[in-house]
């Protein structure tokens, strides 16, 4: 799906209809919502193209609770969702040396996001993967391969195509965290708590998630928030 395509309202409404659960079945859960099996699969195909669902053998997963966000935020999330869907992962030694190499050779105008940037901003969760936006993914992928990196599922260097708005860097990182979901949602909450004044839109998060982040935030970061 391209950013210029219409916002997938029906699919998002479909995804919003499910109570939080790990895995759902198409027949029992999706058909009553979609009206028919065919429509259910059509919705799932669109959601999968945005990285919001996976499905296989009559079962599916809503992979991120992104769909629970308000419509104004969902529209802003599309570039992040599409970038993550087109992410390419690379590894050479599959340890921190891969990250160090990438940091040293990051192309001009690239932008680090998610784990490492969230750590810079919040000190809430230590980073694992280096997600980096680059203008020309193919060109940089070739460079990495020339340097001995392999493309696959386990590497810690992740290239993202630089699409959408990057004017407000903190907001883009915040949106990327929401779009990725999982533990990155905790980063999004931490960014909102510490840098809320830099955000023009706000996500909706379960209250227990917000309280958990508030409680687990390192005391020195809370002090930064209080003083400044």
């Amino acid at each position, binding site marked *: 799906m391209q950013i210029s395509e219409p916002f997938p309202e029906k699919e998002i409404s479909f995804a919003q209809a499910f109570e939080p659960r*790990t895995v759902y079945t198409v027949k029992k859960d999706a058909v009553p919502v979609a009206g028919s099996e065919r429509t259910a699969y059509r919705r799932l195909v669109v959601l999968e193209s945005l990285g919001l669902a996976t499905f*296989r053998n009559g*079962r599916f*997963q809503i992979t991120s609770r992104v769909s629970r966000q308000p419509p104004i935020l969902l529209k802003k999330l599309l570039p992040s969702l599409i970038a993550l869907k087109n992410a390419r992962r690379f590894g050479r030694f599959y340890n921190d040396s891969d990250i160090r190499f990438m940091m040293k050779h990051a192309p001009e105008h690239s932008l680090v996001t998610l784990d490492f940037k969230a750590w810079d901003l919040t*000190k809430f969760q230590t980073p694992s993967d280096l997600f980096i936006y680059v203008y020309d993914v193919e060109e940089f992928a070739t460079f990495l391969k020339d340097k001995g990196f392999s493309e696959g599922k386990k590497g810690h260097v992740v290239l993202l195509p630089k699409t959408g708005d990057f004017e407000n860097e903190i907001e883009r990182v915040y949106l990327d965290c929401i779009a990725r*979901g*999982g533990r990155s*949602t*905790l980063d999004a909450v931490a960014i909102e708590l510490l840098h809320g004044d830099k955000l023009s839109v706000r996500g909706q998060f379960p209250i227990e998630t917000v309280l958990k982040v508030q409680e687990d935030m*390192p005391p020195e970061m809370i002090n930064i928030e209080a003083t400044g």
Partner: protein
Amino acid sequence: MKPLVKEALAITRELGDVIFLGAIARYLYTKDLRESQDLDFATEKPILNEELLLLNYKKEYRNGKEIWYTPRGIKIDRYTRDVSKIPMDRIIKNSKYIQVSNKGEKLRTIGLESLIVAKHRAGREQDSEDLSAVAKIKFGEINWETLREISGDEHEYNQIKSDMSYLAKSR
């Protein structure tokens, strides 16, 4: 060694044979971790606040809630009765020791089957991600009979088995 693993070893030396839960348990099983600055653990017997203060653990209040920190400033959460409604006697019985260093140092952690049941019950977004990581790496090591006993509910057991099977094969 990951800083949080070092911290868990220090806690074990100070407080005894505690059973680690949460994100560090996921790390011990999958070797994949984004550490937040907190450690959750269960204890067979309650540890008194006075004992913690004597060991230089510190108490603070945040959002009106009492929060404890280790002498090195890491937040801790103690569980003494149950973990996601799994009774403590089952948590203890199903716990295991995992070696974390070449020197033979070990940490006691919640059993794989208890971890899966607890995370499945919690059902938060980060729990689904943790279950997915565990399913991909440890699916073949799950003792389903033990998991059935820990769950104590046939419907939940079937749901977990089917969900883990799906997650194990997901991309």
